[in-house]
């Protein structure tokens, strides 16, 4: 390569500050195209980068070999030593200039056709199933990091820095936007890939509603809004050792999904409920979801 990564990519705007570092929209000066630059600062020592970072980057590069259509491309990785103790890792991702929020915003009333929602959900779940199969939990799925190309191709972004999946890993709280956060995250219980499926359920509902499903303003308020739909979970499903006890919430019964998500047909409503299952161990997985009736093509038998 003629230019170093630092020279080849020129930031044009800051587009996000995460727990991990800063994200920029940038220009690739060789092609003129926009890219997304993610800078992560990591503590280094005399042996260089921590092994965990090296492993994460290696995993992301390995994923690239599959060229999955529903995740953004990782184009380049570079490291710059800033000081003796700190190294900057820059990940260069494909930049898709439309997120699901903007896509839903410009859909004229009465909203997306049912078939379009199904197509997007199939792509969304394919991308997520691929990440989960490679032991990556996204942990921050929201309309802002589900990208849609001008031809309607769905691509997941911002998964790059998720830690390698481990069910027992105590993950730092406050990683998922409140509205799409799974109950076990809100309760700070243990969690793994099912947290993403909860977010998928919220986003699935939002595609029909064109507004978020549960808009809580605190952890407890968010849980209350969730229980208004799914009902108060049973004592046996409530996780042990969490600060918020079940008795902190008023008893209430599950409501019909159609009350919250009008226009959803039965197989879709059934799948949505499987996603919005309180107990993460009983929640549908991405792989299972793709094989549910909702995604089966009925035209084949109809003649």
């Amino acid at each position: 390569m003629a230019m170093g990564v630092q020279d080849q990519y020129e930031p044009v705007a800051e587009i996000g500050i995460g727990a991990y570092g800063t994200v920029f929209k940038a220009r690739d000066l060789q092609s003129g195209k926009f890219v997304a630059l993610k800078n992560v600062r990591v503590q280094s020592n005399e042996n260089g980068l921590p092994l965990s970072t090296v492993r994460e980057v290696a995993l992301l590069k390995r994923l690239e070999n599959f060229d999955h259509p529903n995740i953004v491309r990782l184009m380049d990785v570079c490291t710059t030593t800033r000081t003796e103790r700190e190294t900057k890792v820059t990940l260069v991702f494909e930049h898709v200039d439309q997120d699901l929020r903007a896509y839903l915003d410009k859909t004229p009333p009465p909203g997306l056709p049912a078939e379009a929602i199904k197509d997007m959900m199939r792509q969304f779940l394919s991308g997520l199933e691929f990440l989960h199969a490679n032991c990556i939990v996204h942990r921050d799925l929201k309309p802002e990091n589900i990208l849609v190309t001008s031809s309607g191709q769905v691509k997941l972004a911002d998964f790059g820095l998720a830690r390698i999946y481990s069910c027992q890993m105590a993950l730092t709280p406050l990683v998922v936007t409140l509205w799409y956060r799974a109950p076990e995250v809100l309760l700070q219980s243990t969690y793994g890939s099912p947290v993403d499926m909860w977010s998928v359920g919220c986003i699935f509902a939002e595609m029909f509603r064109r507004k978020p499903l549960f808009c809580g303003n605190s952890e407890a308020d968010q849980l209350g809004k969730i229980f208004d739909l799914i009902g108060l979970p049973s004592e046996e499903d409530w996780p042990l050792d969490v600060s918020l006890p079940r008795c902190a919430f008023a008893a209430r019964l599950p409501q019909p999904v159609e009350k919250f998500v009008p226009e959803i047909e039965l197989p879709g409503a059934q799948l949505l409920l499987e996603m919005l299952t309180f107990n993460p161990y009983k929640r549908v997985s991405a792989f299972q979801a793709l094989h549910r009736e909702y995604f089966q093509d009925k035209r084949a038998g109809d003649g």
Partner: protein
Amino acid sequence: MDQAGLRSRADQLTTAAAQGDLEAVRRLLDSGADPNAANEFGRTPIQVMMLGSPRMAELLLQRGADPNRPDPSTGSLPVHDAARVGFLDTLRVLRRGGAHLDRTDRWGRLPLDLARESEQSHVINYLQALVG
């Protein structure tokens, strides 16, 4: 003080435009932010806006954003970027807002050339029809 408080209004406005955050952009413009001010990287809001949001293009143009300012490094106009990635809706809004379609970027490419390179058939048809 929070992080946003330390950033200039030009930086905040370009960030909001790039994120496609219509509400934030409207709020900043209402409170007097300049729609053509360059940010810390020398770019204006319309140069970095989320290209898939025609409403963002519309809002910025309504408030006086100049759609014909070339990118300082690549010479591209927003119409080049919109044409390349196939956002015909945004391209139409830009044109209605006075964007020129006959300018070339640093490599001598027109928006139509970029649409052809990336096989954006809707954009190609639209631009060819304009040429007649």
